[in-house]
């Protein structure tokens, strides 16, 4: 297994108390595999990724427990120096907003080349040649002429390609993409997702795709972990989850997508609001919004239990959910 997150807990200390952003998350990604982490804002999907990358803001953040095994080694007990060698070289991250993630006062060539200078000890000249190669690889037209251009001179889609190029520079075995296409238009989103899928196949990388877009997930993922209030509520291969969700939250998300045969009718809407992380409801965090909730759900926290060969659901009544 390339990456295994085991029982991860992350907290944030805020003025109003301790916010439990991640409460015991388990997931794993293998080489060449795409895991989609699906969730709304505040579900802990990005915080988990930041903990894996080691870029969590500490403080106010704090990893309160768990293990993150990367190629069998626990990243959390590693020395910062060692960890820095892994980060960037063997695992890399693509952020949502390319414009604010790139340095506006350095040319893209310098930013791409820096990867080689720092991690590989290359000369500036060689690094620049490598940068051109990378820009070619992510299909930026006229790479040789544009290597000296600054981020603001590129369009949104091109900037996201540069982010991808930067993540790929040292051929990592794991890429974490945090909402990589959310800021892009659909036609450009299709280009970028295609590129990412192609490169992932070529280099046999593991990919963690963090998103809230059920359409994108259906297009590229092998397996899915659905997060709610800092926990995984359902994990399953992509085909099974869309065919028959085993958790009412997943079902609600899928049902709220507008469908052709329901035009003019009311959309299914999950009632209520996502929970406040400072005051997660007792029992199942989803119970105040759940159409199936019973007394048990308000007192006991449902564990993420095996419900099929590769499936798990954190709902006491998963059988009912699968059936109905």
């Amino acid at each position, binding site marked *: 297994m390339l990456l295994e997150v085991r029982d991860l807990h992350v907290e944030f200390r805020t003025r109003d108390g301790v916010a439990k952003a991640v409460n015991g998350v388990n997931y794993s990604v293998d080489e060449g595999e795409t895991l989609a982490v699906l969730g709304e804002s505040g579900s802990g999907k990005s915080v988990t990724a930041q903990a894996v990358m080691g870029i969590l803001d500490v403080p106010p953040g704090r990893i309160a427990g768990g293990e993150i095994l990367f190629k069998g080694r626990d990243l959390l007990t590693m020395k910062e120096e060692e960890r820095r060698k892994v980060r960037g070289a063997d695992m890399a991250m693509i952020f949502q907003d390319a414009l604010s993630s790139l340095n506006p006062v350095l040319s893209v060539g310098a930013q791409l080349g820096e990867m080689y200078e720092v991690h590989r000890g290359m000369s500036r000249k060689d690094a620049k040649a490598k940068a051109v190669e990378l820009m070619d690889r992510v299909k930026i037209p006229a790479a040789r002429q544009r290597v000296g251009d600054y981020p603001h001179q590129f369009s949104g889609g091109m900037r996201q390609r540069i982010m991808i190029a930067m993540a790929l520079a040292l051929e990592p075995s794991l890429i974490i993409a945090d909402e990589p296409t959310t800021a892009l238009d659909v036609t450009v989103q299709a*280009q970028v997702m295609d590129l990412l899928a192609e490169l992932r196949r070529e280099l046999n990388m593991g990919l963690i795709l963090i998103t809230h877009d059920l359409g994108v997930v259906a297009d590229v993922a092998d397996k899915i972990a659905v997060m709610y209030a800092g926990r995984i509520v359902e994990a399953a291969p992509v085909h099974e989850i869309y065919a028959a969700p085993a958790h009412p939250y997943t079902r609600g998300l899928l049902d709220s997508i507008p469908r052709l045969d329901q035009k003019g009718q009311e*959309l299914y809407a999950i009632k209520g*609001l996502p929970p406040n992380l400072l005051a997660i409801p007792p029992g199942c965090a989803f119970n105040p919004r759940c159409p199936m909730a019973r007394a048990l759900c308000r007192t006991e926290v449902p564990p993420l239990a095996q419900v099929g060969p590769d499936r798990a659901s954190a709902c006491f009544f998963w059988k009912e959910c699968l059936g109905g």
Partner: protein
Amino acid sequence: MAETILEVKDLVKHYPLTQGVLFKKQVGAVKAVDGVSFGLGRGETLGIVGESGCGKSTVAKMLVHLERPTAGAISYKGEDITKLSGRALKAVRRNIQMVFQDPYTSLNPRMTVGDIIGEPYDIHPEVAPKGDRRRRVQELLDVVGLNPEYINRYPHQFSGGQRQRIGIARGLALRPEVIVADEPVSALDVSVQAQVINLLARLQSEFDLSYVFIAHDLSIVRHISDRVGVMYLGRVVEIGTDTQIYDHPTHPYTQALLSAVPVPDPQARAHRERIILTGDVPSPADPPSGCPFRTRCWKAQQRCADEVPLLAVPQAFSSGPAAHPSACHFAGEIQPPRADSLR
């Protein structure tokens, strides 16, 4: 179609590009909107889709008179409102209200919800007499599904979805006939989007509202719209009923746009035909000659560079679902893709 309440004709908005500090001279123009025409019937929802920079938000701003058009006319019940000013303009503006995209920046953080929703009454006191305002605001809160007791709270005490409801309540305050909603749900969480869409649909039938609904999410637009206009680089390239546009698109851009939408069904992954466009949208400061889409179009020929295609019903389709206006020289030859391309 029902009575036309709003009609836009050849609407143009050019932003001048200037050079020099003291002696400014115009060196060009950003052609944000470049000849847009459409009509909106009473009680109807017109969806406008297109990529960022296509001019859809600029059209919205002109409809509510936040921007003055460079040329063209916007008729509200037959009267051109672009030339109005003073009292006459104020009267018209009451009837066309806007709901903004970002519920975080479109509400003043220093004002209470009651003041935000009641502020339109300061400008149009004839709608609600002073003593009656608090009750009106509480009614509005109730209508949009918020607790009327929240009237003294501040925006930061609400979630994104609730804030968007406040924005909608403010839009409704003056009992307008037309609401222009610019990406009203795109800043919201998926599970909250459906709630707000349902609210908008309910308000429409309750208050007989007409909507101009601008969004980039094509499946949401289909769900809520009676008719849909597709914009590209400041122009409407195709317009028709939702079935005409989604199931029988005749403009290559519409086809590409629809095929790029990810379908929430992994079964569809294998047998989907996708048109992946190359390159980016050209700059509206320097649009291509002829058809604006020709630089990314796989059908483009010499004629597309020479002649601007007009928005018209293709002659080949005099009847049937493909018979709707499309601005492509070859609209008559384009085979509409499979009907189930978008669910």
